């Protein structure tokens, strides 16, 4: 539909392209004029751009409230080759607008937060010039995410998909000269990009399969033909959905390809909050939700998605228990929660999945930003405690073993962090409880195995969040830095408060009674399983959550560990198992030995032996062959007239023999 047609549908819909162009505008302003605006100016422009996008999203939501089917707005014909006809068009429907709201909403809050955070982070890393570059990348990310979410066909979705992968590469490697021996951050960024690329490989193959089975890449046409093609070529849909699952595992850090997310914590904390908790990683969930019609055709694929999600949820939760870095714990917790969402969407409970996605965006962003404020405080404390010597001793501001007793030093951060943690753990009134409960209810009805896995994961979630709370905020400060830790400025804590409110009241979005979100999403999803409230499941989940917190208190609360060196109380009872948790089940090492090192040796072998040795060998060999041949013939040119005469006579004899024998 062209601009004016859609305007007739609803005046607000024609604003849709602004969702992408506003962040791009912000990005260009900062890029070109940034130097003169100063830090506050840059922050303002960036936040305004994202805020503008949020406003447009709200307007679209209002528009959708009236015209609930939404519409598609075609901007330009991107590629038209033979029967490949792809347009750059915006799809305005309840699902995409929901994602826009979450992305731009949480995004704006994080933009405001990062003005304060980056102000000190940039000073800490002695490169004030980088402030501008951070906000350029952040706006680029919002723009690409909007392209992904608002696209009307799989190709534009793929453009956004890899675009956000690029932004996560740029932002993880923001401090590219920091990290393990100077190259750690850059390597983490490269790891993230390459692992994402492996996922994108799967999505690319799915795209090709889609094109050749459906003749188009457009959502509406594909979902319309889905039943027909499923009947005609069931294998095709199975292949498409499974390859798409490979893409999802890459982007949403599910089991086989999750390894990049923990390393992505190398990026500044607002990045972890925005990209690696709230928005980018949920792209996979959005993809499965969007192509739900395809998944319904192939139950086997749905099961695959469900099991991948459930297994990841439990697996990541176990690792989170053994981590010391405050952000690593949250990273594994994100992977685990994403496991919940993927399992939900896999079960067909798309609404529950999207609901958990939304609430998770709130409290996980809150937790990350809280962790950021804790890190700022501890760095601040460290600077004061060791004002004297300036040496960079091996102090790691993110290591929980350095912290302790921060609730007195940083009361506001503590309260907000507590709310976030309880919401994540799934304690009753908070948002986390409702969304997780809905997933557990759906799991309970769909397959007991998955339900057990998810409940175990929920228990472990409560446990490691309790552990983190106790280690960071309770007990005695374990290092000079944590003694002197100071509360972060208002600019940092304000967004925290807003997010805390959202975490508390987020549950209202889809309360068992009102099912607001469900009615909202009905318009764009094929068929949504009605989320019914099962009391028993709810009670069990609250019980599990409280049990987890209690156990954490028993282990970490009663006799808090004092000195820095003291081993983690869990080490003795679990020893071998705990060692495995600490080392992340050695998955990174496994991948390194099985994939990375063999590929490097193949590369060296093919560069050395095959290329230089064989091929060049043959080529140079021919060259030297000719030379040695020439050397051999030179001997005949020995200067003696008579030997030449001999050769001539030999020639004569040969000619005559030829004549005679002819």
């Amino acid at each position, binding site marked *: 539909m062209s601009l004016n047609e859609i305007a007739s549908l609803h005046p607000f819909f024609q604003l849709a392209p602004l969702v992408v162009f506003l962040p791009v505008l912000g990005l260009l302003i900062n890029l070109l004029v940034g130097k003169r605006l100063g830090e506050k100016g840059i922050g303002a422009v960036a936040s305004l751009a994202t805020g503008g996008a949020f406003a447009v999203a709200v307007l679209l939501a209002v528009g959708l409230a009236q015209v609930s089917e939404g519409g598609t707005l075609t901007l*330009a*014909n*991107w*590629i*038209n*080759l*033979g029967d*490949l006809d792809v347009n750059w068009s915006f799809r305005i429907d309840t699902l995409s607008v929901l994602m826009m709201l979450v992305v731009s909403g949480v995004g704006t809050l994080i933009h405001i937060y990062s003005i304060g955070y980056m102000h000190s982070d940039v000073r800490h890393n002695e*490169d004030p010039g980088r402030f501008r570059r951070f906000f350029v990348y952040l706006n680029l990310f919002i723009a690409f995410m909007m392209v992904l979410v608002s696209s009307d066909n799989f*190709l534009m979705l*793929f*453009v956004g*998909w*890899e*675009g956000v992968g*690029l932004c996560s*590469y740029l932002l993880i*490697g923001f401090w*590219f*000269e920091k990290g393990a021996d*100077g*190259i750690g951050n*850059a*390597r983490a*960024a*490269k790891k993230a*990009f*390459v692992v994402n*690329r*492996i996922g*994108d*490989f799967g999505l*690319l*193959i799915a*795209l*090709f*399969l889609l*094109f*050749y089975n459906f003749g188009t890449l457009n959502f509406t046409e594909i979902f319309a033909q889905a039943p027909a093609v499923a009947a005609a070529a069931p294998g095709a849909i199975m292949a498409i959905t499974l390859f798409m699952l490979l893409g999802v595992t890459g982007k949403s850090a599910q089991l086989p390809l999750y390894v990049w997310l923990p390393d992505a914590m190398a990026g500044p904390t607002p990045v972890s909050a925005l990209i690696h908790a709230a928005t980018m990683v949920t792209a996979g969930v959005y993809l499965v939700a969007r192509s739900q019609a395809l998944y319904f055709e192939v139950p086997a694929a749905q099961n695959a998605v469900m099991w991948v999600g459930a297994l990841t949820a439990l697996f990541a939760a176990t690792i989170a228990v053994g981590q010391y870095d405050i952000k690593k714990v949250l990273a594994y917790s994100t992977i685990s929660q994403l496991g919940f969402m993927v399992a939900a969407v896999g079960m067909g409970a798309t609404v529950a999945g999207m609901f958990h996605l939304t609430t998770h965006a709130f409290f996980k962003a809150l937790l990350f930003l809280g962790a950021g404020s804790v890190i700022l405080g501890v760095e601040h404390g460290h600077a004061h405690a060791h004002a004297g010597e300036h040496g960079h001793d091996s102090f790691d501001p993110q290591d929980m073993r350095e912290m302790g007793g921060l609730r007195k030093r940083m009361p506001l951060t503590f309260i907000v962090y507590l709310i976030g943690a309880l919401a994540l753990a799934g304690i009753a009134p908070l948002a986390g409880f409702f969304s997780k409960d809905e997933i557990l209810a759906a799991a309970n009805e769909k397959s007991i195995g998955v339900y057990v896995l998810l409940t175990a994961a929920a228990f472990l979630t409560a446990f490691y969040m309790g552990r983190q709370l106790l280690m960071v905020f309770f007990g005695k400060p374990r290092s000079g830095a944590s003694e002197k830790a100071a509360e972060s400025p208002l600019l940092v804590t304000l967004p925290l408060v807003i997010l805390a409110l959202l975490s508390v009241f987020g549950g209202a979005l889809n309360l068992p009674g009102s099912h607001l979100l469900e009615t909202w999403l009905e318009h764009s999803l094929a068929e949504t399983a009605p989320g019914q409230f099962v009391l028993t499941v709810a009670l069990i989940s609250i019980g599990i959550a409280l049990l987890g917190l209690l156990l954490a208190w028993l282990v970490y609360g009663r006799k808090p560990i004092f000195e820095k060196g003291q081993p983690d109380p869990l080490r003795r009872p679990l020893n071998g198992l705990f060692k495995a948790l600490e080392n992340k089940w050695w998955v990174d090492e496994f991948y390194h030995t099985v994939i990375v090192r063999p*590929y*490097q040796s*193949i*590369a*060296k072998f*093919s*560069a*050395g032996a*095959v*290329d230089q040795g064989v*091929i*060049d060998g043959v*080529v140079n060999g021919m060259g030297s062959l000719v030379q040695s041949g020439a050397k051999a013939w030179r001997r005949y040119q020995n200067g003696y007239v008579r030997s030449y005469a001999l050769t001539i006579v030999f020639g004569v004899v040969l000619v005559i023999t030829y004549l005679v024998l002819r």
Partner: protein
Amino acid sequence: MNFGIHPLLLVTFFPLVGVLVILFLKTQQKKAIRWTALATSLVTFGISLWVLAQFQPGTAGMQLELRVPWLRLDGLAIDFYLGVDGLSILMVLLTALLTPIAILSTWSAVEDRVKGFMVFFLLLEVGMTGVFLALDLVLFYVFWEFTLIPMYFLIGIWGGERRIYAAVKFFLFTMAGSLLMLLAILVIGFQTGTFAWSDLLEKRELFAAAQTWLFLAFGLAFAIKVPMFPLHTWLPDAHVEAPTAGSVILAGVLLKMGAYGFLRFNLPLFPDATVRFAPYMAILAIIGILYGAAVSLAQKDMKKLVAYSSVSHLGFVVLGTFALTTQSVSGSVLQMVNHGLSTGALFLIVGMLYERRHTREMSAFGGVWKVLPIMGALMLVVTLSSMGLPGLNGFVGEFTILLGTFGSKVLGSPWFAGVATLGVILAAVYLLVMFEKVFLGPVKVEANLALKDLNVREIITLVPLLILIFWIGLYPQPFFNLINPSVENLVSMVSSALLAAH
């Protein structure tokens, strides 16, 4: 608005005017020589735009044809036959665009014998444009061989340490292939009595019997030039030893002559053989993609790495060509242009780094982005474009090629595209490794701290390429409109043979 001279004739031979003027300048007048060369190549670019203006995108057949009887041996008619269509218009524009950029990049790079350098460079431009416009087999062969000579001297005289070895290797490789091609051309000539491309299309059945051998003869010459997997070892040596400008033109245009040759001669003239050999050529192309990517990872010298990446990228082009679907062939024609832009820019930046530190070893750099922010940013964009990131030109080409190859009836199975798509991952690996080794991480070497960022001239050389990289990435349709009709015509020509064959 015709200056009385045929546009194609003008665009091909105008650089000779520059050569003439330069010959009269004294060797000491370096500045004058450089400006004359630049001016001539810019005017040639202007003329090529004028040719583009006269080119109607809609029609599939040859346009602006110029056919003048040239040689008449008894029974054999060799014409001076130029023409342009969808396949060659972009190549001519690319040549006309890259030459002034390459000349501009030699301002501070080439100091000795500037006169000789510029003369050879402009002669090279004549040869290249001629190759893309020639439609008479003999004329094509003449231009094909003619490009060898200036390139040989460019590498041989202004090259690095092992330049003689590299120049000779480059020359022999291409020469060996093209001799076979000459043989094939003669065979065709004698059997049909004409060398003109359009006439040969009608008389295809005359030499249809020897089609397999003719295909292989032409194919070998083009495979060496592309370069395809086993015949590629001349490329890294040629690139490492060539001066920056030489590398830009070598990667940007000379490699495309091979790929273009497949499209112009192998496919239309020997359709049955093409259909029969397509799977084997596709397999070779895929090996090239994966092998090139793997070997690039193990390289220590930046130019060698980019050279092997060219092997990998052109693997995609050849794969697209032999998949014989509209998407894949259009994609490969566009990918030829894309590769010229992104690899040309890569070589320019590597050349700028070489001018500053006089070494191409990646270990000599590290954390340079902190010291050279602008160069780092431009390098990042160019690396992403050659990696095939959506939104930039590389992706459009690669996606259409892979999409076309996936469902191509000639190759038969989707596995070809499946394995080739792995190349996309490997490309990301070695390019990011290069970017990391050179630009990221801490500044290890003291000398890197004193490096100066890009000056205005260097930025001007890169800007046109970047504009095109973004333009093709964001809105490729105008380029596809140019290519599409001719490609559809070519594919239908070949597929008619496919139907006949099955």
